[in-house]
């Protein structure tokens, strides 16, 4: 048996996972896990954890779980970023060896996009959408829980790679043939492909779920043109997900086949065609960047109207422009590889289509500015992020147009100019938007406000740190520095700018620390929101108490206006929401189920088994998947009734019941 043990140790713990820093993290994780288990046991919270969280199908709780995962992943991705910047601060420094640097930039990109931004967006969808459209839950609550657990176990599978077996190291785009066995024999890339396929299934299901929810579950009277912009953004994002993720899954599966079953779709030998992968990847990848930013366009539209105390400017054209972006985003993917020799005709076409997409985006920017115009702007943290977003995103968009100029892109492609550009739009658009949304809807999710003063400190650190980090990177691009270099020679003039950039990254890191302090402090001592409407909001979620009761609306509202809650307040009709006891009936609610959690766990087993080609384990996992699906398919006992009396009591205790 000793040979088996040696095999296990060599496979699971190769030298690349035995760096001192990783061993230190191993120790920390073990201590943390023991501490957590001890805490849960001592406070008798295992049952609570299982009943209230792991088996829940309540969209509000799923939102909280998404949010926690996203913040943990922001931490992981952020640590990766700090490590990259530390390495690049000096020329010819070997803080990390090349292989580790390669792994770290790969996990940084993958985690930030797939395991930070996406779940953060879904946290906002889950927290807000049913409340905004006057629904009791999403269209398919159980599928919603499945989506979350597929994402969560996909994220776990991806994240254990650096302590078990070795991380992927081919960049977040994972271009073949470098991902092939000839260059990448370890399990790292298997982790990447399998984790993204599993999480991607969850994402696709979320897309379907919210598409159906926004189309079918709206309260009576809420016509399409009366939907708040965030609902529009969610609908459009869901549609984008629905058509963008299949090409990704196909590309990942084909790469995985090359690695596991010896096919030659993208290999160096036997006529493989790596460019096919690149096309499939970006056929997903370009819509993906709009999946990452359109929801935040929605957030900004809500935030700017609320804190300017003014109706959103140009609503119909905001809808038109978001739809235009949706359609155009499918026609621009080749701009990620103008320099792959597709020919001048193709390049010119995709250059122009990329420029075209700047027009509807520009329209949105003007409309946000004119929403503030003639308003009364309240400088809350949510609004500060929105106000930081406009100039940041405009500059990011401008550098994007420069990259769309095909001949210019020949010079700028894959340089730090490109790196600066996409961080400019993804941090300026997505991260600022996510944080804006978090500060805005936090009272609704948790029943207390995040401390504004601490939030402002975190904001300024993020905002200033961001510009100090990425302005030098534009200049580095003009100096010819290409991306993903683990070190660079002195004498090219790259040193000083890299030092500045690293300092900026530290400032952003400090911003994250303050943000976490802000969240923890506010959870303990934050100002409770007793009104349910702390910001003087405009849309229906603010008509509910904070935090929202399990059933959301005791009586489904009837919508007359675009900003229904604002209109009701203007007419002094808020008491109309106070119920008469006879208005309350039994409420049908989805029932908790362990199936989504077990399904995710089974997929994790499948993924882990396939990563190491341990087929028996993969088969056991697959049987688990089939069992979960079969059980779920024939489980008709999926809802329960909440007695009208219980609802009346809850509403009465909140002071919302007449008589």
């Amino acid at each position, binding site marked *: 048996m000793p040979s088996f043990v040696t095999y296990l140790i060599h496979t699971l713990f190769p030298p690349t996972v035995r760096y001192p820093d990783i061993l230190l993290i191993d120790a920390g994780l073990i201590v943390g896990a023991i501490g957590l288990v001890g805490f849960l046991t001592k406070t008798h919270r295992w049952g609570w954890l299982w009943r209230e969280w792991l088996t829940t199908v309540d969209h509000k709780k799923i939102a909280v779980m998404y949010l926690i995962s996203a913040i943990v992943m922001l931490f992981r991705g952020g640590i990766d970023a700090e490590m990259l910047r530390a390495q690049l601060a000096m020329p010819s420094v070997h803080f990390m060896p090349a292989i580790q640097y390669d792994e770290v930039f790969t996990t940084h990109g993958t985690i930030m996009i797939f395991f930070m931004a996406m779940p953060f967006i879904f946290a906002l969808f889950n927290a807000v959408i049913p409340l905004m459209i006057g629904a009791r839950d999403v269209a398919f609550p159980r599928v919603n829980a499945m989506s979350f657990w597929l994402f969560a176990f996909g994220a776990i599978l991806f994240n254990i790679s650096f302590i078990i077996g070795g991380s992927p190291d081919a960049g977040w785009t994972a271009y073949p043939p470098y991902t092939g066995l000839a260059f990448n024999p370890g399990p790292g890339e298997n982790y990447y492909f399998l984790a993204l396929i599993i999480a991607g299934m969850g994402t696709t299901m979320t897309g379907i779920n919210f598409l159906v929810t926004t189309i079918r579950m709206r309260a009576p009277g809420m016509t399409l043109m009366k939907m708040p912009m965030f609902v529009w953004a969610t609908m459009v994002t869901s549609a984008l997900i629905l058509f963008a993720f299949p090409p990704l899954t196909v590309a990942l599966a084909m790469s995985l086949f090359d690695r596991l079953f010896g096919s030659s779709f993208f290999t160096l030998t036997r006529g493989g065609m790596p*460019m096919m992968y690149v096309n499939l990847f970006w056929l997903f990848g370009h819509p993906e960047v709009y999946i990452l930013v359109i929801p935040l366009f929605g957030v900004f539209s809500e935030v700017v109207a609320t804190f300017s105390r003014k109706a959103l400017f140009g609503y119909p054209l905001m809808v038109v422009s978001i739809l235009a972006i949706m359609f155009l985003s499918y026609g621009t993917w080749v701009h990620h590889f103008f320099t792959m020799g597709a020919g001048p005709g193709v390049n010119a076409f995709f250059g*122009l289509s990329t420029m075209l997409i700047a027009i509807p985006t520009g329209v949105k920017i003007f409309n946000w500015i004119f929403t503030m115009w003639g*308003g009364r702007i309240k400088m809350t943290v949510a609004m500060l992020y929105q106000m930081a977003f406009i100039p940041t995103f405009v500059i990011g968009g401008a550098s994007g147009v420069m990259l769309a100029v095909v001949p210019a892109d020949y010079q700028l492609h894959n340089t730090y100019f490109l790196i600066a550009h996409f961080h400019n739009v993804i941090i300026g658009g997505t991260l600022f938007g996510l944080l804006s949304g978090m500060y805005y809807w936090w009272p609704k999710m948790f029943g207390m406000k995040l401390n504004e003063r601490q939030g402002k400190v975190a904001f300024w650190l993020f905002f200033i740190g961001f510009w100090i980090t990425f302005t030098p990177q534009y200049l580095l691009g003009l100096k010819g520095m290409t991306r993903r270099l683990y070190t660079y020679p002195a004498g090219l003039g790259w040193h000083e700018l890299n030092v500045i950039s690293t300092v900026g990254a530290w400032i952003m890191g400090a911003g994250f620390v303050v943000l976490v302090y802000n969240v923890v402090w506010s959870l303990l001592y934050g100002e409770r929101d007793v009104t349910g409407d702390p910001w003087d909001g405009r849309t229906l979620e603010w008509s509910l108490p904070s935090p929202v009761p399990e059933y959301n609306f005791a009586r489904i509202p009837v919508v007359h206006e675009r900003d229904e809650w604002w209109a009701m307040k203007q007419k002094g009709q808020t008491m109309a929401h106070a119920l008469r006891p006879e208005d309350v009936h039994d409420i049908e609610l989805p029932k908790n189920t362990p199936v989504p959690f077990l399904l995710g766990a089974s997929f994790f087993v499948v993924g882990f088994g396939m990563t190491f080609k341990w087929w028996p384990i993969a088969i056991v996992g697959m049987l688990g998947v089939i069992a979960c699906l079969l059980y779920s398919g024939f489980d008709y006992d999926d809802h329960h009734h909440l007695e009208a009396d219980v609802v009346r009591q809850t509403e009465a205790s909140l002071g919302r019941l007449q008589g």
Partner: protein
Amino acid sequence: MRPAFFKRPYRKLVPLALAAGLLSTGCGQQYVLLHPVGPVGQQELHLMELAAIAMGIVILVVFTLYFYAIIRFRDKPGNTAPYRPDWHGSKWLEILWWVLPAVLLTVIAIPTVKTTYALDHVPKGKDPIVIDVTSLTWKWLFEYPGQHVAAVNQLVIPTGKPVLFELTADSPMNTFWIPALGGMEYTMPNRVLPLWLQANKPGTYIGLSGQYSGTGFAKMFFHVKAVSPAAFNAWVAKTRKTASPMTMAVYDQLLKHNTTGQALYSSYPKDTFPTVANGFTLTGSGMYMVMRDKNDITYMPMQNP
């Protein structure tokens, strides 16, 4: 006489203004993209500048409106700005900002398309010198099919003459990039892509890869020496005489996954570079086939199907 307190902050601004001025005129040659030494890089730079100016106008307009709005309409006691909570649209304003970006983008788009087509082929009437580039793991192999010499990690080209690089890979993908001369192009296995560049000034320039290809990727720098045509011919003659030949055994050594220094070879084995069967566009209007015979390279126009 001005009071001293006017002068002092002004004096502090002088070095700042100087720095800004230096930046805008391109302090040093280290902003290599801003100092191209060949026609390709120059045309690319012109478009970058045009796009930067057009986008600068957009940024200026947006920033002016933005800062005016956030200063004027803040929620402060005593703010006299008009408060119009129900103002939710204006037809003419909205038409304006569909039109304004469209106009500016058209200004960029037309030269973009023109230059994209123009740079796709070597200027007519100029016979390029051909260099076959193969990216290996993690080194560059340059073969001169017209001169029959080869080099690793170093490149010598004549000035004033277009150089047609035929790019392929016997490795994961890389991009072949000489920033001082012009833009990059991918090297891909099982495909050959063309890229033409030209150096108008003699000098030594840096070349590198822009596509990550593994742990040695950061070491894939190479030197490009642009010399006068006469010096180039002399270099070829000298290399053929003094350097050792590249045998198949040497080539197999190069295929190993490692980084190496520079090397020169007086000849190289056949079939280390793929024969170009499918051709590629060099004129923008049709496909050309590269014909190789003993001493020369010619381009045969292919009939459009």
